[in-house]
């Protein structure tokens, strides 16, 4: 300590002769840097190898795209101008898009109770027992790993073609994703208030209701809005496999080569997605304030 130069004695920057008194000291050599550099080099080399394998395995061939540009051009040319016939195209498109929105909405809100229950079980701070914790984690992983499209295919065979199957599919997948995100939010939150209630003799359940959950309400709502956004988009894809909504119309338009109708549907969907996106951004901003 005593060998270090006394910085406080350096003259104020405003003094005219300040530059003359500026001193320099050699920067100590870092031994860690060498180790870090060789680690970075290895990581880059591995990434390069992985990319070569990936290019070969996916048949990545830009030349094919150039050759096929003609076909794509024809496809686009046939789509223009979009078919805006009210009775035949636009009205059904708007109606189906609303159904898509409703599927996304129900798929999100109806998964709140299940996601909350599993989140409480699958968070270290609120779980009633380590075994319950393990089981809840496993169940959440399963619902997360199975894509919503697969759930949709399963439910279509159970309850038939239509939006109901889409809602059920979203509830399942969204429980998995939101349960995990909420559990993590609770684990990462400040454990102080939980400890305070525990030392006041509150039960585990009371600690959950009066500390763990209220502490993360803003994160919960933020994640919920984010999932609503994702679910509305997902419900589009669900339509492609017969689970209702505007996805079904897009699928039909493509199969019957009515690309101008397809374009109308896509434009309507685009508007919906922008509106949902803006609305959830607005709510999140209000929430943060």
């Amino acid at each position, binding site marked *: 300590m005593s060998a270090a130069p006394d910085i406080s004695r350096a003259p104020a920057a405003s003094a005219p002769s300040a530059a003359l008194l500026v001193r320099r000291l050699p920067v100590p050599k870092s031994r860690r840097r060498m180790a870090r550099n060789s680690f970075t080099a290895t990581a880059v080399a591995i990434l390069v190898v992985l990319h070569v394998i990936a290019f070969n395995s996916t048949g990545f061939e830009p030349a094919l795209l150039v050759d096929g540009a003609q076909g794509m051009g024809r496809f686009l040319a046939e789509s223009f101008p979009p078919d805006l016939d009210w009775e035949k195209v636009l009205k059904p498109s708007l109606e189906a898009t609303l159904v898509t929105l409703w599927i996304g909405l129900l798929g999100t809100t109806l998964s709140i109770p299940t996601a909350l229950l599993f989140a409480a079980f699958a968070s270290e701070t609120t779980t009633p027992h380590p075994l319950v914790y393990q089981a809840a984690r496993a169940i959440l992983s399963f619902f997360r790993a199975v894509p919503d499209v697969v759930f949709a295919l399963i439910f279509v065979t159970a309850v038939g073609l239509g939006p109901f199957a889409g809602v059920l599919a979203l509830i399942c997948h969204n429980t998995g994703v939101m349960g995990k995100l909420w559990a993590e939010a609770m684990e990462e939150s*400040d454990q*102080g*208030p939980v*400890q*305070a*209630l*525990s*030392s*006041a*003799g*509150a*039960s585990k*359940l*009371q600690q959950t*209701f*009066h*500390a763990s959950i*209220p*502490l993360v*309400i*803003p994160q919960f709502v933020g994640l919920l809005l984010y999932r609503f956004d994702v679910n509305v988009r997902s419900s589009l894809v669900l339509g492609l496999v017969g689970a209702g909504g505007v996805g079904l119309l897009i699928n039909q338009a493509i199969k019957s080569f009515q690309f101008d109708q397809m374009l109308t549907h896509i434009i309507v969907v685009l508007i919906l997605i922008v509106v949902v996106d803006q609305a959830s951004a607005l709510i999140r901003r209000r929430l943060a304030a």
Partner: protein
Amino acid sequence: MTAVEVTGLSKAYDGTKVLEGVSFTVRPGELLAFLGANGSGKSTTLKCVIGLTKPDSGSIRLHGTEVCQLQGAAQVKARSQAAMVFQKIHLVPRRTALDNVCSGGLMRVQGLASTSPAFFPKNLKEEAMACLDRVGLAGSALERAGKLSGGQQQRVAIARALCQRASVLLADEPVSALDPHAAEQVMALLAELAHTENLAVAAVLHQPDLAIRHADRAIGLLKGRIVFDGGTPALTDQVLDTLYAPDRIAA
């Protein structure tokens, strides 16, 4: 009878002794200050008494009841005679001051009524209001805890401890995060609660001068052992030099 009676308390973390044969008492009606350098074991002592840490050996009696041997509900009940006040305060910022104070009394609420502040029984809320009034914050009952100043938040936390109906108040650096004026107010409140409500109050304090001004008695810890136990007038410069020697060497 003494409110807190600790005898031969020892605790080690990974083989390193943190507390060695710590014995002391806290009587109703007195404010006891814990002093000592960083890492001398002040927080660990309070955590053992409140039950957030399990001691390796020793006995802890709250109003004559040995709490370390008890299990389950009996232990929770015996421990709840003591309440903890933290440096970081630990309120739920989005909830109102009143709801935070009510949560101190959750032990007396069962079933559905304890799942949401909306279902809290009227008598709990009225008791919480009285506790808030005791710390001078009845007027801020419906404000969000997070919107209050640091000093006000710490007073809400003290009200929460009162709503727990605790007769022993343990405070770990309750004023270290507060500005001098708020610190003075909170220390005066703790002393007043000891003297007029006959609570046994033990507070870890970072500044010896706060202890000298507000506490009745002080305990000095040095590397896990008690090296001073006496009235605050006996806290001479020499005693303080011994207590804070480790901090000075570290600096």
